């Protein structure tokens, strides 16, 4: 029951986010700041993780191919498929639920407990639009982050394969190019957009409606990470059934 009222409150919040917009010039600045904090500041960890996980995926695949009947190009093929379909969009989004998600919840939550949100409301500002809308817009750039993760994941796989001596560079690249289905890329980017929206709004919801003090801000951040991940996993499942099966 409690979850149903929370879901209702979440959608009511979304309604408010798109109402009574903040002054244009101010909104522009807020969006730029969010792009920096949410997108640019996340690139480092995304680059690091994608490169190495891509490498591990290809090594694992290579190690599991003992049968000489299976061609070497399977390594590149498997790396590409897993990176584009799941690793980049979903795995990275779970990591981002931890990074961006807890950042959003704790920053909005501490504004709530120190009455900064009340201060905005008293001035007649729509605090939900002021705080959440710029995050949604900034996260429209999120699919670019995922694009980078895809590229670096495959690149990391190539490096690991070639320098680990598992197969030749030519075989890996041939594998990456073989049986490519463009719709898989579209599917991955559709997922990324949906995940971006979840990443912007679920942690905001958890922070905006929290009560208590500094301790509760910490708890809310943890709860936000859990809920954001769970919702991303469910959304992933639903989108996959709708688009791929």
């Amino acid at each position, binding site marked *: 029951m409690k979850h149903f009222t929370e879901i209702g409150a979440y959608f009511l919040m979304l309604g408010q986010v798109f109402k*009574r917009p903040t*002054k244009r010039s*101010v909104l522009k600045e807020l969006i730029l700041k969010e792009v920096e904090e949410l997108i640019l500041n996340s690139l480092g960890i995304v680059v690091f993780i994608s490169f190495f996980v891509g490498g591990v995926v290809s090594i694992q695949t290579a190690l599991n191919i003992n049968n000489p009947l299976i061609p070497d190009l399977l390594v590149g093929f498997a790396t590409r498929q897993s990176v584009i379909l799941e690793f980049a969009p979903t795995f990275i989004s779970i990591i981002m639920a931890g990074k961006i998600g807890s950042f959003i919840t704790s920053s909005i939550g*501490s*504004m709530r407990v*120190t*009455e*900064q949100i*009340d*201060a905005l*409301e*008293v*001035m*007649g*500002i729509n605090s939900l639009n002021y705080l959440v809308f710029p995050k949604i817009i900034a996260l429209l750039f999120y699919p670019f982050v995922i694009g980078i993760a895809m590229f670096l994941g495959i690149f990391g796989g190539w490096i690991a394969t070639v320098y680990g001596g598992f197969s030749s560079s030519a075989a890996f690249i041939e594998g990456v190019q073989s049986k490519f289905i463009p719709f898989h890329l579209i599917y991955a980017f559709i997922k990324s957009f949906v995940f971006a929206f979840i990443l912007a709004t679920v942690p905001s919801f958890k922070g905006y409606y929290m009560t208590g003090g500094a301790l509760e801000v910490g708890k809310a951040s943890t709860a936000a990470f859990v809920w954001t991940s769970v919702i991303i996993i469910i959304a992933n499942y639903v989108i996959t059934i709708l688009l791929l099966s």
Partner: protein
Amino acid sequence: MIKVNHLNKQFGDTPILRDVSTAFERGKTNLIIGSSGSGKTVFLKCLLGLYRPDSGQILYSDKPFSKMDNNERKELRQKIGMVFQGGALFDSMTVEENVMFPLRMFTDQTEQEMIHSVNEVLSRVNLNNANKKFPSEISGGMQKRVAIARAIVNNPRYLFCDEPNSGLDPKTAMVIDNLIQEITQEYDITTIINTHDMNSVMEIGQNIVFLQYGKVAWEGNANTIFNADKQEVIDFVYSSNLFKKIREIQRSK
């Protein structure tokens, strides 16, 4: 002028405000006093529309707040300045940006004009060298003064202060009290101040509402409070050791 008729507010099953009726006059410093937990903050937040009262009416210049549409509320709120108990400064912004915020949001002033107004109010609250500092880099007392500057920078018609001088040293507290009174008279605005500080009561208590357990237990001003015959008021006034001592001395004469 703000009028309040039969205001009730409860959280869960606990009544916090009980049938509160009173009036706050323009050009005067109106004080809401009472011990911690008596409902002062909740009352202020009801007046501001941050909490929705369960019943009763709040009238701003004879217009009921509950009957105002979104635009009227927005217009009203731009004429309200509020100093929150903890300051509620935006911690991602510098002192200057905090004070400039209402101007940036609601006026078409140029950067130059805004900086001019900001420096003017900051010097009124005796804060001249903190423009580029962040709230976390200044003391609690300085934060309070920035909050006051932010509340008055856009020339409000109504000024609300929730314990504006709690946590300040007595001298700064008095400066702040006097500043609030000065502004109130100079711009002829309606000012409402929550406090449990007897010094403020003496200094600026032009109209006093005494809240106890969410009820108006007494009304008067700085001159009449010492002759109040209500026991709760006497207890409140003489909860301060200083006043207790003064009374003992007076009695022993």
